[in-house]
């Protein structure tokens, strides 16, 4: 039983390990480390936010600091659970609306 769980975990983790960034037009989803993901605007690299993720039931659950929003992520799909905001206070920012982007397929994966 434990072996099965371990193999499942390895499979899940490896599918992440093979893929460092995803295309989600017009945004870039960049996996910085095992638990950190950056979402950046494709138009303006200054518009980005850092999210911290933890594995829950084979899905990464990610929360932004400074109230930047939250989403769930696996290797094929990103599912927003709140508005996600890129940018900085007092500066330009961009909101990915929760209602308009509840679930978006990650089109491609690049290293």
């Amino acid at each position, binding site marked *: 039983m434990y072996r099965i769980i371990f193999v499942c975990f390895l499979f899940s983790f490896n599918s992440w390990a093979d893929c460092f960034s995803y295309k989600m037009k017009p945004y870039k989803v960049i996996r910085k480390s095992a638990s950190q993901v950056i979402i950046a605007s494709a138009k303006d690299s200054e518009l980005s936010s850092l999210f911290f993720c933890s594995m829950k039931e084979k899905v990464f659950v990610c929360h*932004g600091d400074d109230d930047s929003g*939250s989403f769930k992520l696996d290797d094929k799909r990103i599912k927003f659970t709140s508005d996600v905001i890129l940018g900085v*206070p007092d500066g330009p920012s961009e909101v990915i609306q929760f209602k308009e982007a509840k679930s978006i397929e990650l089109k491609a994966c690049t290293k």
Partner: protein
Amino acid sequence: MLKVGVAMRILFVLFIFYTLNLYAEQRYELNRGISLLNQSSGQTIDIQPEQNLQFEIAGEGSWFYRLRVFNSDGTERAGDFISAKSNIDNGFVYASLLDQYAQAAEAISQGGDPPSSPDCPPNGERDNGTISENCQIPGTDAEWQAKCEQLYSSNIPEDALNYALKVMKLNATSFRTNKCFDSQGLKQSNHPSMMGMTGDQLENGLLANGLPNKCQMVINDTDDRSPSSGGDNCRGRMYYIDLCQGSDAVVVEDYFNLGTGTCRSGRNGFRNGDGLHTTVKGAFFTHNEAFDFTNTTTQTSQYNAVARQVQNAGGPRRASAVHLFGLQNTNNLASITGKYMHVSPHRSSWGCPSIKPENYYMIESLANSGPSLVLNWGREGMEDIETCTE
């Protein structure tokens, strides 16, 4: 005739002193609960009438009576006990009568008429020299309580101060406001702001004996918007309080940044949600270790500059930040949504009660002596702290 009048007055004074002497040996019982400070041990104890203790007044200071405490079997408790006069006057049977006699004796000895009734402050006014119940917090000494009382003369709104002190008192010796704080989840222990700590370690380790830091705390008044916010309403009034430095209470007034979801469009109010950029109201306890906010943001160049500012001001080279654990239903998402108290170069925030870089020492102090109390307060929308207290 004059001699008879003088003799009558002397007799009256002697009578009063005789009566006082009787009362000095009088033992009293309680008609309501009071707090006593044992100066020998530095501990404050709460006593209830059901304990059937008896008391003798052994002396007095400007604001307190010194007491001898006797168990129900007549044995005396060891210790050097004092309690605020307001406690005794209201809590002891006969105590107010004793005060009245003392005032009468003093007035007569000075050649005046005895007062017809004890002097009582009008409702709502504070009597100088007394310690309010809010300041009688277990684990604090008489000096701390006197400084606490001074806070009522500062600019801190009285309701905000009362709220903060109530949170401190409820959690003085054990973590009692524990019913709501982690129901929505906390950050993972491997997050840079958590420094390896888990919720269990916070609740059953750091807070096992109650809130450790009774010296420093922060009260943010979300209603008092500073004009220094540049006209966009995004700065509120912050009070940094230190009750352990110097001979008087220290209150530093400055600003904290509000979340743009609250202060710009205002459409999100103070909602406790994710991705809303709101300031959230309620009481928080801090982590006991500060961290570098640069590690949790993509604004690396901006916060590296802030870290240099902190270093130039005499602090460590980091953008000082401390994790906040919201204790109430109105703010318990603060941990998982990363609403920290941190230094910031901005004029607003995305929900963090951020402060100016020169005030880094406040964050470092709250963390080093922590966990500490931070309160985001407003006249409206404050949840009763008892709701989340066991």
